[in-house]
């Protein structure tokens, strides 16, 4: 068989997937081709989140797809990764929406919530009748969440929250925020509903990245939350960090989709553009650059697949996720910049995909643990010494 250099799938990842996983990838891929790609450049240009796609994504079953209950599909983690890959082939903003809804809102409720909280929220979140957001990062920084300032104090059986959260995807559109706050007993998680007195959200504008996604600030000013809205099983910082592991896992796959989109456009351009009497593919430098993009995408694919296998076998370690998020997002950002450059002047237009992906990936390499944080997590795993 001739290796697939167009998708690309050079080392036949396709052959490692189950029938289910291939079906899921193709179904989501078709949705992205037909419903996302025709509108997404315009959304990005005009700083608009395509709200109209949310109900369609819910009808497809893209939210919480690995859960076996609450009307979800019960897919493997590799299938989940492929969903993220296909969504991010469309746009990182759309993938972010799905990541937050599934990995950062449904996951903590599913894992740490009470039976009542699960019944109330999970089916509605799966159908996207309700949207969620996740509040951990604060205005003073995100890399050291142990020093968070937002706190919750017990008062007459309720909790009173004070503080602020920053860079929150879906903040102003969310019906429920999963908010992490310090208490006298350590970090705890709270479900704060839209409209609760003392809770407000405001959009962050002037972004040059994730423009097809809503990013917000959350404010808590003597915001009173009943005890039944606290996630009863979440105790300590390990709870929000476990959520981040889920989201980072999805990002490791999502980045591949962004890189594939950039590579394909660069390859098509190189085949068509004539320079000094020949199409670009005849030039050694162009071939070397395309080969390098292909090499990096291929290694990221196999890394993500093995990570997914470990997760499906319940053997995945969070430092392995750090390595994958670091490697794959760095790969995607470099491929996007390379593709942007290869496209010449046309590459600066939003009509070509690389510049949009490149700008988006600047966020992706920063959120859910910066590249440096992931390097230090892996470094700690090697040496046993914390060097944050």
């Amino acid at each position: 068989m001739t290796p697939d250099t167009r998708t690309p799938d050079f080392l036949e990842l396709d052959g490692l997937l189950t029938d289910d996983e291939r079906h899921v990838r193709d179904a989501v891929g078709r949705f992205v081709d037909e419903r996302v790609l025709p509108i997404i450049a315009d959304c990005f240009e005009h700083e608009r989140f395509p709200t109209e796609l949310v109900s369609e994504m819910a009808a497809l079953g893209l939210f919480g797809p690995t859960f076996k209950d609450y009307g979800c599909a019960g897919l493997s983690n590799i299938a989940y990764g492929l969903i993220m890959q296909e969504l991010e082939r469309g746009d990182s903003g759309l993938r972010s929406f799905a990541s937050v809804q599934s990995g950062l809102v449904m996951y903590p409720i599913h894992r740490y919530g009470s039976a009542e909280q699960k019944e109330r929220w999970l089916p509605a979140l799966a159908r996207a009748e309700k949207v969620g957001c996740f509040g951990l990062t604060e205005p003073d920084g995100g890399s050291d969440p142990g020093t968070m300032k937002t706190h919750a104090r017990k008062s007459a059986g309720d909790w009173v929250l004070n503080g602020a959260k920053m860079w929150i995807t879906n903040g102003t559109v969310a019906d429920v925020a999963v908010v992490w706050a310090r208490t006298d007993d350590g970090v705890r998680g709270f479900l704060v509903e839209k409209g609760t007195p003392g809770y407000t959200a405001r959009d962050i504008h002037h972004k040059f990245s994730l423009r097809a996604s809503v990013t917000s600030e959350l404010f808590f000013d003597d915001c009173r939350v009943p005890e039944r809205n606290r996630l009863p099983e979440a105790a300590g910082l390990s709870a929000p960090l476990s959520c981040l592991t889920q989201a980072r896992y999805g990002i490791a796959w999502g980045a591949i989709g962004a890189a594939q989109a950039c590579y394909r456009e660069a390859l098509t351009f190189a085949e068509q553009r004539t320079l000094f009497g020949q199409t670009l593919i005849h030039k050694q430098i162009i071939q070397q650059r395309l080969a390098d993009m292909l090499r990096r995408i291929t290694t990221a694919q196999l890394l993500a697949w093995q990570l997914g296998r470990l997760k499906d076998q319940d053997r995945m370690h969070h430092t392995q996720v750090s390595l994958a998020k670091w490697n794959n997002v760095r790969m995607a950002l470099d491929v996007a910049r390379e593709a942007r450059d290869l496209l010449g002047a046309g590459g600066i237009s939003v009509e070509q995909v690389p510049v949009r992906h490149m700008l988006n990936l600047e966020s992706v390499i920063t959120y859910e643990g910066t590249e440096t944080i992931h390097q230090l997590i892996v470094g700690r795993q090697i040496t046993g010494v914390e060097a944050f």
Partner: protein
Amino acid sequence: MKVLVVVRQVPDSTTTIKIRLDGCDIERTGVKMVVNPFDEFAIELAVQLREKRADVSAVTALIVGPAAAAEALRTALAVGADDGVHLQDPAFDGFDELQLAAAIAAVVRDGGYDLILLGKQEIDLDSGQLGPALAECLDWPHVGATVKAEFAADGRSVTAGRRIEGAEEVVEVRLPAVLTIDKGLCEMRYPSLPNLMRAKKKPVRTLGAADVPGLAAATGALGGTRMQDLQPPPERPPGKIIPGEPEQAARELVRLLREEAKVI
């Protein structure tokens, strides 16, 4: 009412079509295969009937093809078909549309179906003959290229609209009948991921040539046609640029169109 949808698997329209080395078909291995887009309309129509009408008891999807064709069947099941039939045997490989129709007719004749739906054509070889041939083999009426279909309340007939040159033709047909579906009647919904998983558990009967009653007699008598050779279309000659002042160039263009191309 029992509905049968015939599904075909074709190369994805974004793939580059290559001719097989023996020249007798297009390359179908190593190519991304999808449900024939016209058959998607038929699947959706069948599922809508199943959802809207209490008298529609079952929708069966049928495909003829290799093991990999099960993927197309699964899509139909995920969208809403109740069960599937997969005719899978190397003996079917060289069948033309009439032989294929005879084989399908032999399988479904005693199945109690009232309605057979399929796309009006396949986007790969484009023959568009399977529907009419199937109707012929079953001795059922056939309506081709349907863009509207209204089923009578008693479930015994359908009023079908067809787009013809400059007009829409309206025909009424008694069931059982074969309808081939054209673009515009409906669009297939996306199969949801939970339904894709459930589709695995729906029953699919896989039948080989030996399981088709009277296959040899039904197809043998037809003789059939065989693809001899496929050639890519000739490359388009390069365009011609006529230099000179606009007036002169226009005159030259008219002369060339009249004397060389002989189109005016």
